[in-house]
């Protein structure tokens, strides 16, 4: 059975575990073996098989004591933005090379509590800043579908690991699209819940008002299982929403008939590549054939999302990254003069170009005399965009559109042009600014030279409506098999 373990859904794995046909240790060994075999993807930054196997043994022991639970013994990989006690936590930065956290992130802790087994830490853009994973200090991750293409970012390690089936589930984070864009580029399911639903405690902060923990999974159903365990009120995070834990699988079986899908015209305007548009429109047709109604809607200020985001996110990042000064932990320059010089040199050496660029932008927009014109104005427009979503949700139950303008691009294609790179998040940023939950599900492939590169469909719902959102995604996945496809090199 081992050769198919990585092709199973979480529900199937859970059944096999429950029937004692496979142990958590078997699963851990199987996926550790696949990680080893596919090191070339550069998806993992830290693996410690002895730690993973010890956790798997503990999960088996829990089951032997009579514990059940759908996730007990299921392996998971964590994005290197979550701090972990047992694995290094670097945010893919030289600044934190080898850094060991004395505590686990709440997300990591909650998944460990239900018995999930950590496979290791996965690569990402440095401090989660990027859309291609080219900004990792430890080298880019390859896209399993086409190794000349980027896996997307910043959660590129998470998306590549799941697409290559070297991890059945990976945690990820989304600030402006960092879950949805790499999920789309890698042909898997990416879930960004409502801001405030999962705890940020233990997430290395990029932009605090936007950073949201989420998941990379094969399917929406898998996501619903893991998300239920991952989310919940955390008194350690003041922005955590105090609501009871939820079972996000509850709406999986709910039919599509009667569903109103809002289609924002701004998401189908100039810039959208024809092959992506065809795949997305095809998915919308599928929904219509299942009984949904398509409603034309408008998010008129959505196009301001990128300028707003590139004020707000760098502003917060410029402050959040100030703690990395070489004084208490992290990289410290070898040669320096006085204390100020030590801080300057340590930061100059420790940060890569993209964090530096965003620190500079953020410092600028917050500085005296510019604050009102940039930061305050951006917050006002952000409010407008959030209001537009509320307006839209009076007309529809869910909003659908493309995740990205194009399929995954090639390495180096946009690296020299930050603005074109920033445009990768055109369709994902509005939902981030509003804080609404959103998923990206595979709905086809590109055309011509891009025929091996997946296309993603984005679905967004109103706040706290994750169960319904995942149900809508799941119904599509019952009707299609895009999410079941595995790149040939990683199928066996």
């Amino acid at each position, binding site marked *: 059975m081992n050769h198919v373990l990585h092709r199973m859904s979480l529900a199937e794995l859970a059944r096999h575990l429950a029937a004692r046909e496979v142990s958590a240790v078997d699963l851990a060994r199987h996926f550790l073996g696949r990680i080893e075999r596919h090191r070339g993807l550069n998806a993992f930054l830290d693996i410690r098989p002895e730690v993973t196997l010890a956790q798997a043994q503990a999960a088996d022991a829990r089951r032997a004591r009579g514990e059940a639970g759908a996730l007990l013994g299921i392996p998971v990989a964590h994005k290197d933005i979550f701090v972990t006690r047992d694995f290094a*936590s670097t945010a893919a930065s030289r600044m934190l090379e080898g850094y060991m956290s004395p505590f686990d992130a709440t997300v990591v802790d909650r998944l460990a509590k239900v018995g999930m087994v950590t496979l290791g830490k996965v690569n990402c853009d440095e401090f989660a800043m990027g859309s291609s994973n080219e900004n990792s200090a430890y080298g880019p991750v390859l896209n399993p579908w086409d190794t000349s293409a980027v896996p997307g970012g910043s959660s590129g390690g998470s998306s590549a690991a799941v697409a290559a089936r070297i991890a059945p589930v990976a945690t990820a984070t989304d600030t402006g699209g960092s879950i949805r864009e790499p999920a789309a580029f890698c042909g898997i399911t990416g879930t960004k819940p409502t801001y405030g639903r999962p705890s940020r405690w233990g997430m290395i902060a990029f932009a605090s008002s936007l950073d949201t923990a989420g998941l990379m999974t094969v399917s929406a159903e898998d996501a619903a299982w893991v998300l239920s365990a991952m989310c919940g009120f955390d008194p350690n995070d003041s*922005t955590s929403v105090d609501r009871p834990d939820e079972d996000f699988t509850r709406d999986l079986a709910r039919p599509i008939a009667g569903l109103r899908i809002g289609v924002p015209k701004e998401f189908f305007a100039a810039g959208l590549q024809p092959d992506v548009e065809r795949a997305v429109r095809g998915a919308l047709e599928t929904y219509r054939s299942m009984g949904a109604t398509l409603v034309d809607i408008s998010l008129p200020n959505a196009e301001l999302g990128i300028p707003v985001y590139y004020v707000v996110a760098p502003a917060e990042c410029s402050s959040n990254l100030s703690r990395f000064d070489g004084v208490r932990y992290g990289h410290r320059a070898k040669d320096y003069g006085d204390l100020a010089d030590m801080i300057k040199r340590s930061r100059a050496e420790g940060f890569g170009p993209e964090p530096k660029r965003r620190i500079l932008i953020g410092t600028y927009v917050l500085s005296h005399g510019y604050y009102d014109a940039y930061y305050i104005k951006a917050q006002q427009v952000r409010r407008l965009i959030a209001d537009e979503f509320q307006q839209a949700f009076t007309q529809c139950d869910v909003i659908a559109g493309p995740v990205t303008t194009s399929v995954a691009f090639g390495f180096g294609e946009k690296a020299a042009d930050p603005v074109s790179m920033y445009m990768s998040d055109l369709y994902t940023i509005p939902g981030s600014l509003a804080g609404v939950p959103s998923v990206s599900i595979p709905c086809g492939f590109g055309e011509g030279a891009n025929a091996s590169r997946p296309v993603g469909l984005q679905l967004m719902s109103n706040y706290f409506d994750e169960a319904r959102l995942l149900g809508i995604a799941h119904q599509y996945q019952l009707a299609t098999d895009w999410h079941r496809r595995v790149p040939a090199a990683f199928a066996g």
Partner: protein
Amino acid sequence: MARNSQSDYTGWQVVIGLETHAQLSTASKIFSGASTAFGAEPNTQASVVDLALPGVLPVLNRGAVERAIRFGLAVGATIAPRSVFARKNYFYPDLPKGYQISQYEIPVVQGGSLACIVEGKGFEPYAKTVRLTRAHLEEDAGKSLHEDYSGMSGIDLNRAGTPLLEIVTEPDIQVDDIEQAASEAVAYARALHSLVTWLGICDGNMQEGSFRCDANVSVRRPGAGLGTRCEIKNLNSFRFMHQAIVYEAKRQIDLIDAGDRVVQETRLYDPDRDETRSMRSKEDAMDYRYFPDPDLLPLEIDAAWIERVRAELPELPAAKRTRFASAYGLSDYDAGLLTADAATAGYFEQVVAALPPGQAKLAANWINGDVAAAVNAAAGSIATCPVDAARLAGLLVRVADGTINQKAAKEVFAALWSGEGATADAVIESRGLRQISDAGALVAIVQAVLAANPKSVEEFRAGKEKAFNALVGQVMKQSRGKANPQQVNDILRDKLAG
């Protein structure tokens, strides 16, 4: 700098505004669960939050907010229903996050005022009210230790995250006399110190830095616009505060007199040299890039919370002063001294309760006189006074009923202070200080004194009243201080007249 000895500093007005950092008396820090206790080994009271490790987040300590509300209610301020925590960004090795969480545009306490009594040389004490601009919550930074580490600096983050209430006044101290301006500033600072300790929101320990005042000082010709101000730091006692303000005002006047101008800057007071020194000028002032902290929701305080805090407020000094004056028939001055701090006021009320009716003035005189002097001489406090309220009351009962006279009472007090005897009565007995009120015994002493001092008797009869006092002194001496002075007076007059 050279002091212009010609200048007499008249014709100038000194303008002062004050900023005070009061460390709030919470057991844990403002955004973490670490202890705030003073004096622990370096870095043993710094949690992962205080160390600003990757992934940590702040959670507001509601006890700190509660103390801010207490303060706001006590000074008649508006408690903002919604206030905002902001980040003040700057790099310093003892600032772990690279920013300080503070309140900037919308502070929790807005407005209010504080009354104080100004005392000093050359003028009668008078009441003064200083308006407050605001008070806001913020966290303290750690400490850099530049000594003891050759060529290196040590960082102690125990203090990082300690809750502070920064209390800012309007520039309401505007006085034409330098010394008096400094006296007003000190009077305000003392009143504030007594209020925050009275409210129990701050321990007021200036040596440990629990109560730190900075003074914004400027000078101008009366009627002119405000001059350029300098912020004076490191005023860690009221005496230094007075000295620093006087020095700084003179320095500024000297500068202007010399045709120079005052540069806006932060200056550090050096008590050893009694001078202020430039720390940093406005030119190299940092741009703190304040913005609302996205890790913290706006602080919302509803009316119910405010009312709960209001209900728990102790009687405030001003109300207590008024009550003391009217209920006990005390002067405003005496009532003011007795209500300078909560411990003294409580001590007074305990003593009065143990005395027969009508003796409050006696208690006030003793507490503001001998007790205060002894406490000050010992650099102690009323709370640790060895003569507790019960013992003092035991002593004053004997003064009131005539068992001992004032002179003996002072002796008994000193004995109680040094631990001799458990009660006043025990000391009176063991030292034999009971007042002689037996007329027969006193007449005998008086007659002996008159016989021994014919010269004084002669002088008195010649109209010299002074001679009478000498005779009283002799009688008191012969009685070893125990004679009832009023009785001695009466008997002596009687005998001299006879």
